[in-house]
């Protein structure tokens, strides 16, 4: 008989009535992170092309942070649960 794992994984905490939602949220946010990484890669490629194949200019850290915030506000904005225009309740 194989030895029993002395400390098997503990079940993840849940926050929604249906724990499937917790897991789907995880997959959704992971995909959002992947999209952001692809977007960053694409920008790096575009910078290189704009420089006609030479090394891309150095990354502007502040501009990258602003871009990440705008991306996140777009992705997570719906989590606020507030209407963007005044409509019926």
């Amino acid at each position: 008989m194989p030895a029993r794992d002395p400390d098997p994984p503990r079940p993840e905490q849940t926050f929604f009535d249906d724990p499937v939602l917790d897991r789907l949220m995880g997959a959704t946010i992971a995909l959002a992170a992947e999209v952001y990484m692809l977007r960053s890669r694409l920008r790096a490629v575009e910078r290189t092309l704009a420089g006609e194949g030479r090394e891309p200019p150095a990354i502007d850290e502040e501009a990258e942070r602003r871009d990440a915030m705008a991306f996140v506000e777009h992705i997570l904005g719906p989590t606020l649960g507030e209407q963007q225009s005044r409509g019926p309740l």
Partner: protein
Amino acid sequence: MTGPHTTNRDWNSADAAAYQRFVCAARVFWSNDLFAALRRQVQRNEDDPGSQAFEARVEAHPTHRMFAWLERHLQRMRYSGPFGLVEGVNRDRDTLLAALSQPLPEGMLRLDPDLSPPGYYGEYDIHQHPGGLRGDPLAGVVYRDAVGSGVVGKPALHQRFAQLVTRRRAPARILDLGCGFGRSAWAFAAAAPSARVVGIDLSASCLTVAAHETPAALRERVTFAQADAVASGLPAASFDLVTSTMLLHEMPESVVRELIAETGRLVADGGIVAHLDFLPPRDPLLRILFEGHARRNNEPFLLQHSRIDVADAHARAGFSTLETLDFAEEDDALDPGLPRWRLPWNVIVATKNVDGGTRR
């Protein structure tokens, strides 16, 4: 989880940086926008007959559920997975280990390979750091990287605390309990320019990072040693100031009681003990979020020290004039309408009786 799913090292590094930028931006959204929306949407009103009804309403509110989920999982993403900080440190393991093996000035770092950590230390992966600060010689690097953003990572927090304490009395001998990777010890050394500072911690990894990254200007006055804060074996009455930053909330209540008694032994007559830590906020919503933070951030002892009558415990340890003060980690932190979630920082400071008397 396995390693990064690309093979080009430059892209790995760029992907990981982008991933962490995403996580950090999401945390800003969580602590600012989502917190502000939650506050708007669950304003306490006269329909709530009491605090329990308010708590139940907040707990069931969809925005609170999103808030709780994001708090839990953005912290997981920061540390774990193919682009988490643990994997990032693993990618540079050989280089980092070589850097931390460089020689140090004699006596600057004393590790105790025979130290047996207390049981509570290994029970949970605090902060969701897989494996915690035990074992892996690079765990301290992961921790340093993890707190390098956000308020906890801002050097001003340590500087503000050190200046607040040293303004009360200029200490010559300082002991920093649970010094982690050194920032608090460095801040006290900078705030008390003639003082010698000893930092102790259970984590060999954190202490090694602390010793190697101590600024050159402080190296003659700061040393680090691996020891348990409640059983350091340091001589009685050998410090003018004993301090800790973010230590109390990582210990069970019984250990905090031992620690207070031990500080009474270590502080010289007329000296000071000063802890920077958290106490539950008075605001009902902030209190609910703080209590939830304990579970979501794997900090099971977060609330335990707040159950202690600290005035009585310090009086029994020989201290008088105990104060607990709200602490502003940033200029606007104590504004009542602060539009972002923050940890409820507090300073607990007490002076040792000059005659060394205790009340038991």
